């Protein structure tokens, strides 16, 4: 057990944080933003990080926002997963984040840290991926900017280097109108990375969207798959089978499960979710 070779900074304002990042870079340091630290510290102790300074974002009030802000639900990026669940502003988000890691660790992991995790899973992203209205509030050198999630998401949320997430918002109406299911499937254990975690939502028009984590090395949603899932002419089992066949990426093969098994699990899970979703309405 030993101290990590890291410098520690805790700015008080957004501007201070954003400027600090550049200052440190200019001084040839390798800064990284620090949310809950659960990933940074696990990587640091294994010498697997390209950083030597952490900028702890938890001192900035705007990043703690957790509210219904006009018509939008706003989630600050340093909110802990347990805070999200306890407040339960968006039950879909609660259901998803409540299955990440374990309870104590969820009290440490932040929303921003999960969304920007370097691991393949980023399960907290799933509800935002299936919604139409998700926006990111981002700190940039030119001040605070809004970005549509759809515009910055390409296998991961791509911000410009040095930018960081202040908060995420979704339209309150949309969030409320979505009937949802979130299922996390693991190899065997309750606490584990997912074989596949699926977030599905049914809109008022009956169409269905699903987002997947664990299936490939990044979370995704696919319009083709969504279309298949929305075809209520066909029974859920058949839609699930077709959806699995139509996935845009190969299922990964790793110590949690083989590629074929992931397909099997995804298929029966999707079928179940469809049944439950459609039974609800």
């Amino acid at each position, binding site marked *: *057990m*030993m*101290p*990590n*070779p*890291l*410098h*520690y*900074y*805790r*700015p*008080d304002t957004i501007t*201070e944080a954003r400027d*600090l990042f550049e200052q440190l870079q200019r001084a040839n340091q390798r800064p990284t933003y620090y949310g*809950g*630290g*659960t990933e940074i*510290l*696990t990587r*640091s*102790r294994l010498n697997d990080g390209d950083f030597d300074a*952490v900028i*702890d974002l*938890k*001192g900035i009030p705007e990043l703690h926002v957790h509210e219904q802000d006009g018509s939008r639900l706003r989630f600050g990026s340093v909110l802990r997963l347990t805070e999200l669940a306890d407040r339960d502003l968006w039950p879909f988000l609660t259901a998803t984040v409540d299955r990440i*890691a*374990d*309870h*104590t*660790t969820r*009290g*440490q992991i932040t929303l921003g840290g999960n969304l920007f995790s370097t691991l393949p899973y980023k399960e907290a992203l799933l509800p935002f991926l299936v919604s139409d209205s998700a926006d990111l509030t981002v700190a940039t050198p030119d001040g605070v900017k809004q970005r549509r999630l759809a515009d910055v998401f390409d296998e991961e949320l791509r911000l410009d280097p040095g930018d960081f997430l202040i908060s995420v918002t979704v339209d309150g109406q949309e969030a409320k109108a979505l009937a949802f299911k979130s299922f996390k499937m693991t190899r065997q254990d*309750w*606490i584990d990375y997912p074989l596949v975690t699926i977030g599905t939502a049914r809109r008022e028009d009956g169409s269905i969207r699903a987002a997947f984590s664990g299936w490939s090395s990044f979370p995704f949603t696919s319009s083709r798959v969504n279309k298949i899932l929305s075809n209520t002419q066909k029974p859920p089992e058949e839609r699930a089978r077709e959806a699995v066949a139509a996935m845009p990426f190969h299922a990964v093969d790793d110590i949690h499960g083989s590629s074929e098994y992931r397909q099997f699990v995804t298929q029966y899970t999707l079928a179940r979710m469809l049944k439950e979703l459609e039974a609800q309405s």
Partner: protein
Amino acid sequence: MKSLTRPEQISFNVNGEPRDVVIYPGETLLYTLRGDALGLTGAKPGCENGDCGACTVLVNEIPVKSCMVLTPEVEDQAITTVEGLQNAPIQQAFLDHNAFQCGYCTSGFLMVGHALSQDVDNGSPERTVEWLRSNICRCTGYQEIYDAVSSVAHPNG
């Protein structure tokens, strides 16, 4: 802005006492607690990776894996370690239910159990299981630990 780039003194409250300790900017709370200055070795390193919970302490009453926190993060906060439990009911419950063997995981489980029993909506078997899943015990059958925590967190079933 707070910045730490070399060993420096910071203050926090440990087990009800204000303490000033010189720390490295990158040291974990687990390291600080167990170090010579505080000597609180009740929190155990079992993985230092957030997985086992043997290092769990309370920060402002909330259970936290102390190997996954940098000490500068908890500046001015209130830390409770197992050494700070003063005849808490959870301790007697662990004795009564034989809730340990080697004892290495015990401090961590005690802290989670204690926090749960203090939590406003403690009280359900599901919640107890969910909180206790955060920790690993390799010796017991878990039932003993569950029974001990339940007896304090939701004594009426």
